[in-house]
């Protein structure tokens, strides 16, 4: 049977991908950020997931303002890195476990989560930066070491789904994966955050104390984290910090009692506080 072994929370700041793509990760600005992912990359090599269920948000790339699905599941055979305005990132095409993706789609809809199904989709930095951060440099002619099932969540137009809804969706994703017959090691990534505001006069907001509390809740009290209101995210973590609801999907797919293997927190990457956590299921 397929099983969910671990969850990863990770920011997906585009500048992190750009730093890797242009080979400047050793520069003083970037070094402390990337040092903090060394252990994570070793951990990934040990864990060797077969499939990553990757929760992220599209940044007006696959979806512009004309179509805004709250949850969209990638069911295509593969997903090309998109041109976001400066050419596609030089990373591999993302390959799906299409059969598992279809199974999850069917299971979630019957579990009353009304998904949008994407049979063609390009993926932007929201999806490829977490893969780059966790795997290190992988060239465009190579393969990502795991198959990837993308789940896009709308966090651009308010309101995104509630933290509670995301947490429950995560539980449903877990049920779907657990009922798939192939023997697979599946990891789930929740991406985005942490505190950041990209726009207008309050841009640059960072709330380290809040972010630290959120990381603590991820480990110790996921139900408490699922009850954080949209207003609290907006006010305390900046208008773009609200994308942390996506971490709740990851958390919902894990056991309530988990082992925190690792965390890393760094300010700044461009405008953003970068947060990262690795949680393993005990069962």
């Amino acid at each position, binding site marked *: 049977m397929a099983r969910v072994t671990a969850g990863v929370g990770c920011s997906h700041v*585009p*500048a992190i991908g750009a730093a890797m793509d242009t080979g400047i990760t050793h520069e003083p600005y970037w070094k402390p950020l990337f040092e903090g992912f060394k252990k994570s990359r070793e951990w990934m090599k040990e864990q060797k997931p077969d499939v990553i269920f990757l929760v992220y948000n599209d*940044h*007006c*790339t696959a979806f*512009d*303002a*004309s179509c805004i699905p709250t949850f969209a599941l990638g069911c295509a055979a593969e997903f090309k890195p998109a*041109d*976001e*305005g*400066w050419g596609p990132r030089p990373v591999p095409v993302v390959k799906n476990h299409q059969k598992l993706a279809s199974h999850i789609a069917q299971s979630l809809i019957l579990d009353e989560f009304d998904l949008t199904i994407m049979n063609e989709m390009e993926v932007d930095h929201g999806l490829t930066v977490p893969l780059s951060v966790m795997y290190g440099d992988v060239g465009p002619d190579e393969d990502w070491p795991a198959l990837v099932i993308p789940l896009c969540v709308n966090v*651009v*137009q*308010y*309101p995104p789904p509630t933290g509670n809804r995301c947490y429950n969706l995560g539980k449903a994703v877990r049920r779907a994966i657990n009922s798939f017959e192939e023997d697979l090691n599946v990891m789930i990534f929740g991406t985005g955050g942490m*505190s950041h*505001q*990209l*726009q*207008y*006069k*309050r*841009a*640059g*907001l*960072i*709330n*380290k*104390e*809040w972010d630290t509390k959120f990381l603590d809740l991820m480990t110790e009290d996921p139900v408490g984290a699922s009850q954080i209101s*949209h*207003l609290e995210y*907006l*006010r*305390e973590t*900046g*208008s*773009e910090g609200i994308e942390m609801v996506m971490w709740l999907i990851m958390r919902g797919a894990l056991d309530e009692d988990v082992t925190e293997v690792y965390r890393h927190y760094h*300010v*700044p990457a*461009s*405008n953003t*506080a970068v947060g990262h956590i690795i949680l393993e299921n005990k069962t």
Partner: protein
Amino acid sequence: MADKEYDDIPGTFVFDADRSREGYHLNQFCISLRLQVNRDAFNANENTYLDKYPMTKEQRDAVVNRDWNLMLELGGNIYYTAKFAANEGINFQNLAGKMTGMGVEAYRDMMLGGGRPIDGNRTKSEWKDN
């Protein structure tokens, strides 16, 4: 329009359905610049290109004047306007330097120093004294 609970947050627009409706054509113009073919067309003849997007006159003026804050005030969203800014050679961080009125260097220094603190930046009433 009824007061919204998040309108009390200073220096912030929450891009909700009302803003999305107001800014639709402005945002669709901005996002079109994701593609090179459209950037070439816009850069070759700005006026002709803008005619394809039925924005209000105010919105169009904001575009022509590269008034990044006014675009947001008129329903623009940062993920969209950032594509327009990229065409102008302005990245996210430098765009923030402009929108905050701090300038690129002071903004970058603030981020290196840990960012804008949350204390004093939660509610509009806290900004009145400044």
